[in-house]
Structures are given as structure tokens and as C-alpha cells.
């Protein structure tokens, strides 16, 4: 792919990510969670909605190993999964 050619006056302005950069997982500490997530995608026609539990687990793995800043999972868009989890805990 060649560099972007701007024929118009507008150009795409890349923005840095909200929460910065993920440190590299040099030792593959969360690789198993990534594999689980990728398998879920392959099994579900690459629909993200059906693999959110797996993506949450991957991010939790990172947080537990200092590979991601601690953040409330509700704030990362997983509030509905957290509510489900606490419902199950309550009923068991």
C-alpha cells in the first residue's frame, strides 16, 4: 500500500489511543487468552458480540500481569457481562 495521497484539502488526522499503548507481552503471558478469543471468533463468523466474554478475559489477564493499567471493566464496555456474573453468583 503506498503512502496516502491527499487529493483534497482534508487529510486523515490520526489520534492517539485514549488509554495509550499496551506494553508488549514479551513473554506471551496472555497468549492463551488471546488464542481462546481468536478461536471464539473463528467459531462464530468473526462476530465480536459473541466473543466479548473472551475479550474481557484477555484484558483481565493483562491487568493482572501489569500489561495494562487497571481499569474498571464496566468502564471498558463490559458492564452487562459484570452484571450477569454477579447475578449468577447471587443465585448460586
Amino acid at each position, binding site marked *: 500500500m503506498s503512502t496516502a495521497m491527499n487529493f483534497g484539502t482534508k487529510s*486523515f488526522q490520526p489520534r492517539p489511543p485514549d488509554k495509550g499503548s499496551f506494553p508488549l*507481552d514479551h513473554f506471551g503471558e496472555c497468549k492463551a487468552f*488471546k488464542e481462546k*478469543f481468536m478461536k471464539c471468533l473463528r467459531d462464530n463468523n*468473526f462476530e465480536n458480540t459473541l466473543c*466479548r466474554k473472551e475479550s474481557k478475559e484477555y484484558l483481565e489477564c493483562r491487568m493482572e500481569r501489569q500489561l495494562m493499567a487497571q481499569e474498571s471493566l464496566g468502564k471498558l464496555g463490559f458492564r452487562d457481562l459484570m452484571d450477569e456474573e454477579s447475578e449468577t453468583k447471587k443465585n448460586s
Partner: protein
Amino acid sequence: MVPVKDRIIKVTFNADVHASLHWNFRPQQTEIYVVPGETALAFYKAKNPTDKSVIGISTYNVVPFEAGQYFNKIQCFCFEEQRLNPQEEVDMPVFFFIDPEFAEDPKMAKVDVITLSYTFFEAKEGHKLPVPGYN
């Protein structure tokens, strides 16, 4: 943030390296289907096949251009130097969402595919790359 469940968008992924960077860099999925307002995870993979440590830095692009304003990266591997040791291979995640307002924008009504492209450059001392936040 409430997901707009009936508006499915296909996000496709491209990966590029600048000629002087000898990394193997590729997306781990060609596409993922998301809805606005729902956070999503995707992966790239990078390998340094050389026998020297190499530091890379990446930037990204979104097409169509007008969809870029709705593409929000919560966290990724871009805009900061990333060092790969000789023969090292790492997973590189992108955690993002498409703003729910995308579904309200009449100009976006016909947009069903958004393409995210990352390009890695070699980070060399004294070089200034046109990426935000790089110093």
C-alpha cells in the same frame, strides 16, 4: 454507552511496514463484525526475523475518511516505540469501539465496511516521525 445492535459493521484490517523496517507484521483476523457502542478486540502480530533488536513505531489510518471520526481506540500499540528483540514475535492488540453516533449520521448510512490500516516504521534516533504524541 449503549450498543446499536441492529447496525452491523464489518471492520477489515491491513498491515504495512515501511521499506526499511524488516518486520513481519500482519493482522490475525481479516475482518471482525462489530456494532457501534460495543467495545471490540482485534489482534495483529509482529515478528522481528533479524538478529538485532529493532524499535518500531506505528501509525494508523481509517477508511472511509469520514468514518475515522467515529473510530475510537481505547488502547493499542500505536504511537509509542515498540522494541522487538532478535527473532521475537508478539501479539499486538487493538481495543476499540465505533461511536454510537455513527448510527445517527446520515452520511454514514451506506457505510458498512470500515478498514483499519496500521503501518510500522523503524524508530531511529534523531528522526521525527509524523505521528501524534511522538517526541
